[in-house]
């Protein structure tokens, strides 16, 4: 049994919905983000995509906060959130580019999923979905076939060791139906034909704060600490039909290990391996001090002045500009021509003498 401690963890958490009334999707994403950070995964390994800004939305009565429990118990926004893709940058194309790694060379490190064959990846998607698709930004959608193809590309390029896919949308189980790459485990909040429901509204904020599945998932994760031994079978039991109203589903046939032997911390948390350094080298050569090879800057002799910050002269003493004459616009001409034609067609050319 390979020791999973040596595998790097990477995460991709995506919220795909815009607009204030989809507050709960952003809260979902941020709660998962917060839990994994608490369990030890650093920001450099997390790609967080939020399609809209709820914390600084004009309608947020408590700015710079996103709450996940009513009565504003838990602020999941915190003060060290690092959002990598925000607003209109969250598109299907960018999402697929992040997964497959086909980003333009100028993309900074924080916007890339720097994973290799020794990474366990967790992907969490939330938003509005349907049978076989997930809606992005209210204007485009990603289909389950595209997602499956993207995972296959990741597999052939050895971009992951094991992948955990969690989706919290309506009819979420349809999104993992088409996966065919090995070592993927998938969880969804509802089956095909069912809707995922939201949890509770907060009357002060005026919207629903969380979805049910993620709410109970968050409760489950709050009990996990970096050295706990809870395994995936417990994760499958999160949010039964009595609490969630929808039936959560999971898919483990592509996964090579037995789900009972997969720890939650294999994906959600990481403890870095450290080794004590026992070898030292006794350096005997003396240090060579570098000469300061920078050239001595010559003194500038030209007088430097500020640019005119406010060109007052141009504003106050403005002469009326000579406007060049333009022939009348085509639209006006066309309109008059149309009116004339209609007139003469109706009444005949003999009325022309009444005009001139």
């Amino acid at each position, binding site marked *: 049994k390979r*020791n999973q401690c040596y595998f790097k963890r990477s995460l991709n958490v995506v919220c795909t919905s815009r607009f204030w009334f989809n507050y709960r999707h952003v809260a979902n994403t941020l709660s998962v983000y917060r839990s994994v950070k608490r369990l030890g995964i650093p920001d*450099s390994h997390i790609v967080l995509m939020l399609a809209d800004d709820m914390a600084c939305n004009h309608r947020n009565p408590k700015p710079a906060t996103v709450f996940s429990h009513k009565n504003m118990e838990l602020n999941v926004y915190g003060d060290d959130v690092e959002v990598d893709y925000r607003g209109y940058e969250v598109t299907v194309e960018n999402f697929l580019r992040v997964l497959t790694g086909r980003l333009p060379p100028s993309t900074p*490190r924080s916007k890339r999923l720097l994973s*290799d064959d020794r990474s366990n990846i967790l992907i969490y998607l939330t938003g509005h979905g349907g049978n076989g698709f997930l809606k992005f930004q209210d204007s485009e959608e990603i289909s389950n076939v*595209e997602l499956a193809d993207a995972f*296959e590309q990741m597999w052939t390029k050895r971009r992951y060791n094991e992948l955990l896919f969690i989706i919290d949308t309506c009819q979420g189980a349809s999104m993992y139906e088409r996966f065919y790459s090995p070592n993927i485990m998938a969880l969804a909040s509802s089956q095909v034909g069912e809707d995922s429901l939201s949890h509770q509204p907060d009357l002060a904020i005026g919207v629903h704060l969380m979805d049910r599945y993620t709410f109970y998932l968050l409760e489950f994760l709050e009990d996990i600490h970096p050295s706990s031994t809870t395994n995936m079978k417990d994760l499958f039991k999160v949010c039964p039909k009595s609490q969630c109203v929808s039936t959560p589903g999971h898919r483990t046939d592509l996964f090579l290990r037995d789900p009972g032997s997969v720890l939650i911390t294999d994906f959600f948390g990481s403890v870095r391996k450290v080794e*004590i350094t026992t070898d030292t080298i006794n*350096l005997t050569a003396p*240090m*060579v001090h570098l000469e300061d090879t920078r050239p001595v800057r010559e003194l500038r002799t030209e007088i430097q002045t500020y640019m005119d910050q406010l060109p007052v002269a141009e504003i106050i003493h403005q002469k009326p500009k000579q406007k060049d004459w333009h022939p009348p616009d085509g639209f006006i001409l066309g309109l008059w021509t149309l009116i004339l034609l209609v007139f003469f067609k109706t009444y005949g050319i003999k009325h022309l003498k009444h005009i001139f």
Partner: protein
Amino acid sequence: MVWAERHRGRLAALAIAAVVIAVGVPLWWKTTETYRAWLPVAQINELAQLQLQLSVEVEVVFSKGTLTAEHQKKIPPSNTRQEEHVVDETTRLRYRYETRYRTATIMEEDALNQSTAAEADISLHMLSESPSGSVVIYVVPESSTVLPEGVSVYVGQRRTALLRAGGQMRVAVALKEVLASLETWIKQVLQVMSFSHGDITAALSDRVRPGDRSREGLADSMRAFKSSPGYEITFSLLNPDPTSHLLHWDVEAAISSYIQPLLSKMAPVANFSIDSQILYYAVLGVNPRYDPTLNAYTLNADSLSHVINPVEARLGSSAASSNPVLNFLLYVPDSRHSPLHITDHRRHTVPSNAFSSPRWGGIMVYNVNASGTELPVDVHIDMRRVMGVFLPQLRLMLGVQSAAPPPGFLIGPCGNAGLADWELDRLMWTRSVENVATATTTITSLAQLLDQIGNIVINDNIAEQVSSAVASLQLAVGQLEVGNLGLAMQYSKEAILQSERAFFDPSLLHLLYFPDDQKFAIYIPLFLPMCVPILLSLLKMASEVRQRPGQGQAKKD
């Protein structure tokens, strides 16, 4: 008259149908085709079956007293030994050791008569230079004093080893037995100085999914970074207490004196970019415990793993490149928690006061005596001590393994650059094999992917990059076969760069998938209104033609 008009109408319908089928359909097919440039698929499929041959040139030099006179006359000038290994159904390895035998020259005899092995080594280097990838073994008689007691092999700074002729050499009468007993020792020397089968299979891990390996094997392979064309190294000084300590570190001089020689020597393997920074008010994030027996604060090995994450967020890195980053942190504890010692699992203090994390970097705790009435105290950090700890950590991270040598071996000091030539050779062998393995998997999976998903556009530049990657790969495999390690490394690096660039080209994302119902929804409003009249008229004509023989007959009657 009516018949002539109907005839004209029929001809018109037929002509339109003909134009639609002959001109329209091919035009539509051509314009909706995805542009796919030609890829050298045959050569790529050839590369999928990887047969690697690694050739090592070995030179065995017999000094005076190791061979009898008649043996000396009968030595074969050369001998070739081959080992074949089958890794899996697509990967095969062949190791070819070409051994040449000769006797030592007078100058070499003088060099071997020095008092210590290290001096002998240095004098031997001045005589000749061996090419990259080769190994020279000098056999010294058993009575020779150049090797210390109990040591059978001394591995030098460059590519030479001194081997003490064993007792079997005296006893054996036939030359064949002498050479056979020597073979076992030579095999061991080559495993230390060139490569062992375990190293090569570990390097092939990209091609071959490793089975369940031992814990140590896994730890070794996880410690060093994967082969990459470039690395970024950052040295950071963490000062959590600037009011008490005013730290001075001459990091530029230290890097240029101690680190840069190593990195310049490793230039064939990868490019390195170094930077340094000082962070103020950066705390470790773990509270050390006070230990009264040591009269100091201690950080136990178990809590060390929680140190890195809070610090990493503040380190920053050069955002522009996606090369792996190695971080080396020097932490000077604040005056309230001074001195700070790191203890291992058995509660003993660690002399180096440093630890490292695989594939991330190393951290060293530097204690200062802040005894002085005036705060802040000026502290000049002893960079030699610091670099003496960072340098071995750097060597570990980069894959220059100092695995425990077999019994009877003595490894000489590594010289000014911090890296012996044979260590560099060893690294180059494993890295070039790793590069070749990774590049072949990238290219073959790209070809497979493009074949599978028929809707992806393949631009000309991608086809060019794939072709040049294939060419570089073939050259690299060829150079490995011949034993030109330097060229093989260079070609393998080029192959990796080009294959990665081809695979991760941003343009390969287009046209991933069109569901069938959407395809119908687009084409039906365009084609149906045009096709329906044509089809109906053709059907009408066909039914008329069928009726006409009946009519003709009726008319006749």
